[in-house]
């Protein structure tokens, strides 16, 4: 199997499935194996910081008198942030030639899924105590919950197929499948916009970021669809 990453000039071992269109022959700056390893370690620990702070704030009570709501909000926001960050990787690689950005994309995407899973778990357990009737009713009746649910439903197969084995098994279909990440992002942002009460500034900022990312990616996505 040809290693598409090689074409970017990245010298580290291939562990990153990456659409050829995203990194074509622009040639990102070379990055050494050890430097990449350090970057990955740094990103990993950085991505754990929000969780650590959340745990501390729950244990000390600094999260406030409604910790369940606090956890739900923090994990939801971090899921969305990591999701949008993962969408930044390709533009950064293409336009700024940050080769490492493409190489940490999978990890960031998985962190998005990790925080989203904590978020959904909080909702199912601490918010609704597994009362499935209530949960299903909310998913059906409340548009903002429907949107969050759809975002999560899209993220699950992406996370499951993020490993090298799945990339190999799925071949071409892998790329098509993983374009769905844009749908997940759209649903997640809608989820936030619709749940906001009164003040919509924050979700609208996320919406603007998403739109910029979509506009940046649109040409490449369309091109690869034709191919």
């Amino acid at each position, binding site marked *: 199997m040809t290693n598409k990453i090689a074409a970017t000039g990245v010298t580290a071992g291939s562990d990153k499935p990456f659409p050829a269109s995203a990194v074509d022959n622009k040639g990102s700056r070379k990055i050494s194996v050890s430097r990449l390893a350090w970057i990955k370690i740094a990103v990993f620990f950085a991505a754990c910081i929000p969780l650590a702070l959340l745990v501390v704030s*729950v244990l000390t009570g600094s999260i406030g008198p*409604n910790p369940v*709501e606090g956890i739900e909000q923090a994990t939801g926001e971090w899921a969305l942030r990591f999701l949008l960050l993962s969408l930044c990787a390709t533009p950064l690689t293409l336009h700024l030639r940050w080769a490492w950005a493409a190489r940490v994309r999978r990890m960031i995407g998985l962190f998005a899924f990790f925080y989203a899973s904590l978020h959904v778990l909080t909702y199912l357990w601490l918010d609704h105590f597994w009362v499935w009737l209530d949960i299903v009713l909310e998913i059906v009746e409340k*548009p*903002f919950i429907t949107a969050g649910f759809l975002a999560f439903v899209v993220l699950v197969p992406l996370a499951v197929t993020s490993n090298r084995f799945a990339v190999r098994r799925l071949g071409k279909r892998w790329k098509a499948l993983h374009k769905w990440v844009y749908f997940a992002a759209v649903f997640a942002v809608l989820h936030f916009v619709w749940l906001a*009460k*009164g003040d919509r500034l924050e979700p609208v900022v996320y919406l603007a970021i998403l739109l910029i990312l979509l506009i940046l990616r649109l040409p490449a996505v369309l091109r690869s669809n034709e191919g």
Partner: protein
Amino acid sequence: MNSRFNPEKKSGAIPSSEITDRKVFEQRRTLIKASVAGAAGSLFGYSLGTGSALANEVADEDTIRAAFRTTEELTSQKTATSYNNFYELGTDKGDPARYANRLITEPWSVKVDGECNKPGTYTLEDILKPHDIEERIYRLRCVEAWSMVIPWNGFQLGDLLKRFEPTGNAKYVAFETILDPDRLPGQRRPVLQWPYREGLRLDEAMHPLTILATGMYGEDIPNQNGAPLRLVVPWKYGFKSIKSIVRISFTEKEPPTSWNMSAPHEYGFYSNVNPKVSHPRWSQSRERRLAGETKGISALFSPKVETHFLNGYADQVGSLYADMDLKKFF
């Protein structure tokens, strides 16, 4: 200390059920029921309803008094004063406490206008002078599906409104919160149409459960909770209980109210607590009671409690809505 009230001295609202021997109390209750039924209003200085309520009997005095204090576990003072919705000071729950000092409460005056014989601008002292401050322990249910139990110090709104002599045309009372965008950080952005507006039907406003609070937990009310004068209507969602009131108007027509103006399909004029009327964002059938342990792991696993019709005050105020379709007038 120049406290706006002294609950020790003036408190006169200990329900008879708590200070009277149970048996004597029951007897008295029956007697009172016989003599006061239907006329309970006169003891409170107004008529409690139409007298011919269909679905709900008009409550007698004891029933109403019984709701002056709940024995449920209180929300801690810290929680009630640090977790607030007061968008004038910011939309985050911690903002009101954080920016509390931006609200200037001295001097304070209230403009009274509309359908009444005694309009004018009244200083806070004018407003408070004749009223005895009593303690009311009420449940507070937020539309966001959380609730608290708060000991308020205040007086019945109806006693104040009577002083302004509403005319026969007065059917509603409208309230406004202070407008001060130079100082209040939340008013610099059009999150809502400022000033914040709320309103009640006159009979709701005159109901003995409806109070104006000047204190909570036996202390002056903190700015983040609506100093120096706020409404407390325990059977309605919290946003109806408007804070830091600077204007009271008697109107003939239903007055515009802020959340209803912002999202009419989500927030009705009445906004009575009703588990059967779902909100597009929050199912209203349960609530998270913010009382007891709110720290550490155990706080995470305290289940939500059932939400009751009219926040558990149906026996007292149900008759106000006897002939109304509350799904339509939500």
